[in-house]
């Protein structure tokens, strides 16, 4: 974050993704620039998760380009993190999970403990630091996943429907963490099908339907007056097929 050049903006040009004979992402082009909380909204099957994975580099597009500002080297991956719908935790302690990416990135041991403690504190997990990660509750596990994603101070944090499986109390805790992370300067790119969540968290909305990017608007505008019929249908709460 200090001297290294920023990896943003991220530019997608005509990105297409196919699987099982179907076109699931259909020619999406966009620029994602620094800072802010961008929420990708849309019905199930719209391709939100796929788009996230394409941006993060977990999938390769069938056509088109995905370019980060600073090139496409391995180190660009390290400046981003992702949190999945179901947290994937290693069979070790809570603190151990947070420590893991630090050791991967070669952070010297002497600096690791402080970073881990801070991340635990931010996530409200200090008390369970020594517990096996897998015995934590669903909400705690997801907080841990975010803490782990954030401990390396990424420039971009992707989150794929992080609260779909959580109860309201846990959901609130996650949303607060996301806001806190955003405040430290990390760009948030998040998917959700929950309108309320989108309203609470988004600066900017990208509306996806059937693999196409239909709208991209600042949040307030989007909720007040969506430009596309599909978005309007979706906002009304009707089924959008």
């Amino acid at each position, binding site marked *: 974050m200090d001297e290294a050049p920023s990896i943003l903006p991220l530019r997608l040009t005509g990105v297409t993704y196919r699987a099982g004979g179907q076109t699931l992402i259909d020619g999406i082009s966009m620029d994602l620039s620094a800072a802010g909380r961008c929420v990708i909204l849309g019905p199930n099957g719209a391709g939100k998760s796929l788009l996230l994975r394409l941006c993060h580099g*977990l999938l390769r597009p069938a056509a088109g380009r995905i370019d980060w500002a600073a090139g496409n080297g391995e180190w660009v991956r390290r400046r981003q993190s992702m949190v999945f719908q179901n947290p*994937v935790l290693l069979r070790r302690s809570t603190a151990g999970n947070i420590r893991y990416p630090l050791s991967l*990135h070669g952070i010297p041991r002497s600096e690791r403990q402080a970073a881990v403690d801070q991340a635990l504190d931010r996530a409200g997990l200090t008390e369970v630091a020594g517990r096996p990660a897998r015995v934590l509750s669903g909400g705690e596990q997801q907080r841990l996943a975010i803490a782990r994603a954030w401990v390396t101070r990424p420039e971009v944090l992707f989150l794929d429907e992080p609260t779909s499986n959580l109860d309201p109390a846990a959901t609130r805790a996650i949303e607060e963490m996301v806001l806190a992370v955003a405040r430290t300067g990390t760009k948030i790119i998040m998917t959700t099908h929950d309108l309320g969540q989108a309203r609470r968290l988004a600066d900017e909305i990208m509306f996806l339907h059937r693999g196409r990017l239909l709208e991209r608007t600042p949040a307030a505008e989007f909720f007040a007056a969506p430009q596309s019929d599909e978005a309007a249908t979706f906002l009304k709460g009707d089924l959008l097929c």
Partner: protein
Amino acid sequence: MTDLNAAFALALDMILRLDADLLEIVGLSLRVSFSAVALAALIGLPMGAAVALFRFPGRLVLNALLNAFMGLPPVVVGLIVYLLLSRAGPLGVFGLLFTPTAMVIAQCLLITPIIAALSAQTVTDLHEEYDEQLRSLAAGPWQRLLTLLWDGRFRLLTAILAGFGRAVAEVGAVMIVGGNINHATRVMTTAIALETSKGYLALALGLGIILISLALGVNLAAMVIRDVARVRYG
């Protein structure tokens, strides 16, 4: 049946008075097999994981070989190692024949395929669960391999135990490469073979009972460790 009773009595007697010869033989059995397992784990765990994770030329062949060699007859392995280590063979200059080291080598060859094959299976299963997350964290290929191995450590412990069981129970390999030399390369299984050939069946059986108890003890200890650790680490 009288042999069985005599066997138990003999076994108990030898244990209670801490028979020196018995301790020597048991000690050597454990040292040889533990060393072989440690070595086989060092080689087999990453090998199996690599076969599961990486794409490289000959991968399918190696996988097939590993699975096939799981059932290698110990006496065949012993013969091959003898031919390699014999003074008339390519590695004869090291003078390893009829030493415990040769026995460790033979047993290591015997159990590495088991450990590798089970390691490959475990890593394959974990890979499905973890792959996306590990790639997201920018873990390099070898880092991913080590992470999966460590995460699968409880299942891998089972694989290692299976290897130890096979090693400590085999007689074909250590007989040929060790020579069953008194006070030098005699282990439990070769001692049992010797006493049987002397017709001293009760003693042979007694030694057998001790061997089985040992294997049982090691297994139990490992199971306890595994269960305790699983509760602690999930």
